[in-house]
């Protein structure tokens, strides 16, 4: 195996490099939960998970509510997904984290 081939195997199999990140959240619209992303799926994804997690945290803080009942506009189950739509670990804890977690 040539070195170039070995490097290709490493690139494909060792650490996956995501092509971008989006904030995943669920939003209540007319009493129904709708899944959305920021930036939207047609927009260019963020190239930084740090920025994406910061955006997620700010969204969760902005829509945090102590009320038990759900309101229109509530944003819940906020986390970061990669370009394939898979959740990624929070870089600060190396764990899968969800802000404003709510069972739906």
């Amino acid at each position, binding site marked *: 195996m040539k070195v170039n081939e070995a*490097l290709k195997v490493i*690139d494909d199999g*060792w*650490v*996956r*490099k*995501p*092509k*971008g*990140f989006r904030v995943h959240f669920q939003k209540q619209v007319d009493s129904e939960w709708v899944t959305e992303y920021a930036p939207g799926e047609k927009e260019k994804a963020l*190239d*930084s998970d*740090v*920025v994406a997690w910061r955006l997620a945290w700010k969204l969760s803080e902005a829509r945090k509510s102590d009320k038990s009942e759900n309101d229109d506009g509530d944003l819940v189950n906020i986390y970061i997904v990669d370009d394939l739509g898979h959740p990624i670990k929070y*870089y*600060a*804890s*190396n764990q899968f984290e969800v802000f404003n977690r709510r069972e739906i």
Partner: protein
Amino acid sequence: MESQFAKYKAIGDLIVSQGQDFVLSLIILVVGLIVIKILTKLFRQMIGKFIFRPQMASTVSNIFFVILLLIVVASALEQAGMATIVIRRILIVIGLAVVGLIAVFRPLIPTLPFKVGNTVKFGDLLGKVEATTILNTRIRTFDGKTVFVPNSKILNEFVINYHFTDTRRIKVDVGIRYDQDILKAKQVLETIMIEDPRVLLKPARPTVYVLNMADNCVKLGGRCWVDNLKYWTTRCELIEKTKLRFDQEGIIIAFPQLDVHHFHGDVSPEFPGEEI
């Protein structure tokens, strides 16, 4: 005496017959220049929305300005009574002369080593070039100050142009304690760099070196390449992730320290030749 009188009379007649046209042409010139200035400003703002390269936007608006200026000058001269064909000839001669002068003297004119929109550093000044004129360059620093720097000063200084190359190397240096697992630390640091989407595989893949065995730490150096425009944020975020991931992995980052060993008189030295 009579000839002098005839001369004054001729001037008087000219003012009576052509004075109104001269005043009108002067008004066209002054009002035209004011209107040109306003129109160019509006045009510059408008094309700024469509043309994202500042240098090109500046060139296009300058061409727009010159065309309007020629129209105004031609109109003023025509109003003053000059024949249209003569005006055309004068403008063509002026145009050719300017082009000829530029072609001849262009190689002799020192050029600035940057373009509008580039991020540059000279001396202690770091910022983005907003505009250049014959005499000075307008720099916008990252803390919002506008600095006008004489071009002569720039030409005599070392200038770093951060846009000259597409990519730039990031250094993530971190010192770990001597009792820590070097290989694990190298692996963690390399993984942090590889999994970042902004880190490039060319011109070189991310690598971690053991830089030095310093007084209080083993110094590791992570090196990776990123797009020039993403340098600063990527660097800051890689450093942040390095600290957090090292904490998660239990790798202890060293800090400057000095161990003082105090021996009593009844204790023999630990190393031969050591004074008690």
